């Protein structure tokens, strides 16, 4: 870290110091965990035409991804003279990607399977708690 960076960091940290102290009137609100499932990809399955009827494998195939957002807290307005502060480390939002592993010519689609490709962190969510504003924060 060079001197300029250190200087910038000092300014940034001072910027949220006592000089700007004013009670933000906030409290925490819990956000429940969320699971978002992406669109399905064609896992091979099968396509078959019998007696003039086209039969396809189910729409519900292999999801492209699944995103898990852990439970966390957000700050919302309050009139009770409180503020929110981080408590502990944040939690990662994870994104698991899937791919199809297919035996492509099977009539009975037992040869295709949905396999985990990779899991990456998509972002993070904070953990907050509510504390009373101090006397100097009004």
């Amino acid at each position, binding site marked *: 870290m060079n001197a300029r*960076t250190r200087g910038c960091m000092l300014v940034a940290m001072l910027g949220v110091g006592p000089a700007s102290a004013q009670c933000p009137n906030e409290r925490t609100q819990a956000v429940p965990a969320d*699971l978002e499932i992406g669109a*399905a990809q064609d896992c091979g399955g099968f396509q078959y035409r019998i007696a003039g009827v086209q039969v396809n494998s189910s729409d519900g195939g292999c999801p492209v991804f699944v995103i898990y957002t852990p439970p966390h807290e957000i700050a919302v307005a309050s009139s009770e003279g409180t503020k929110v502060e981080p408590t502990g480390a*944040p939690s990662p939002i994870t994104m698991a990607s899937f791919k199809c592993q297919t035996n492509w010519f099977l*009539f009975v689609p037992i040869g295709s399977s949905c*396999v985990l490709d990779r899991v990456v*962190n998509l972002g993070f969510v904070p953990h907050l708690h509510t504390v009373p504003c101090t006397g100097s924060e009004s």
Partner: protein
Amino acid sequence: MYTPIPHRSTPPRPASAGHPLRVTLVLAVPMLALAAALFAVTTWLRPPDAGRADREPTPSVALDSSAQNAEPAGAPVTRHLVSQPAAEASTAAPAAADATFEERIEQLVTLGMRTAQLAQQDEIDAAKASDQEVRRLFEDLMQRFADAGERGLARLAGMPDPGTDARDAARRVVLQLVLRTELARRHDAANAAADRSRIDPLVQSLLDVMPQASATAEIGGDLLANRPYLRLVHEPGVLALVRLAGEQAFSRPIATRLLLTLWDNLQRTGERSSEELCQLAMLLLADADPSRRTAACRQLLVDVRYRGLVMSWLRERNDLAVANEVAGLAARELPPADALAVLRELAPILPSAPGAYVVLAHRAPEVVATCYRELLASDIQPGMRKDLIAGVGMTSSALGLELAQLALQNDPSPDVRMQAVFALTANAAGEPAERALQQVLDDPEIAGNPTRLDAVVFALQNLEVGGHTNAVDRVGQRLRSMSLSASGRRELEVLLARSLPGGKTSLPTPR
């Protein structure tokens, strides 16, 4: 965004798990060849004996109790069936022209498993030949048995819940295929003749047996969800499943999928008008049952006349779980521009919904990218900008990387810049990803904020997933010297221990 609708309930297996249905049929190979030859001769030299199928009684799948009174998933199923199909047939019997339905199913199971085995052994020509034989046998089965659906359903309902037996699993696949094909052909016939007297009872029977076991529930859900078969006559059956879900006696995701499908079908076929459905939805909007509420929200959201009503109801209710659910619905189902508008309106009660934006960006990356550029130019709504970058940045596309770089270099919000780093470390090559990390460690608004600095460790984990060990070494070494929280430091040390020999960076940590 809560969308507990797994497309397949079976958890995905790791790539190394191998094929689920490994069988050893070394001795069976010559016997099967002989059986196939015998079958070919007997079948090709004789016309189909359709009379045989007619003589076999159709097994009844009528229940002695309604779905409302059905036992929870996993309960014994023996009392439900009035009659069961014949005992399990020989697995190696040839599909002679007079073979029973059961015998034919068992032969399909055997041949299907053999095809899979041949494929695994890279015996491609033999597998293709076996595959052709399976197709031929299946077509023959469907042609001979006009009641294949009822027979298959009765057989399926009598099966035990999924276990580890490979043959049971394969049998389930074959029976599911029989039902899927039967439903498709009866649907076509019903449309052609404007007569639903053959498909509606089969669908009702399927609804009735679904609560009997988790296997029938999953297969029924798979066969009926997002398909045109559920109609007004099935509404009581679907609502019975919703009710069971409310009593934790049936799968909630499957019940929700079926209710959504039913409403779609009612509207599409005109059995219930859009107006009627919206009125019903408004009544159900405040329903405590999550399936009904989801269906109501979706119905009202897709109708532009009622969208504002849903949004004001959400603001008034201020329930983040429902807001998440609505965000997910909008991202998946509304036209992209409308979805963005809904997400923007949700922002006051749901400040962040990255999952919904990722779903939307996979559908319409350009729409999301354009929205980000516009908001950046105006320097407004940093919360939404962050989610837009999360969305488009995770599409693993050139556009996503371009937008992430744009955000990292130009966005005034440190949270958006941090989000860009996640996109770059997850999807860019090692060098630009490492550069992005080094840049945010020089960024006082990130390095000086304990929460954001801890999150940099999560981004570094993405480099580990990408196999960029040298970059992990260099960035990890630098992070060690910074003011991480205790838990952030623990996370970093675990990561370095996983990635580097002995957890040691190539250079000692500067003090």
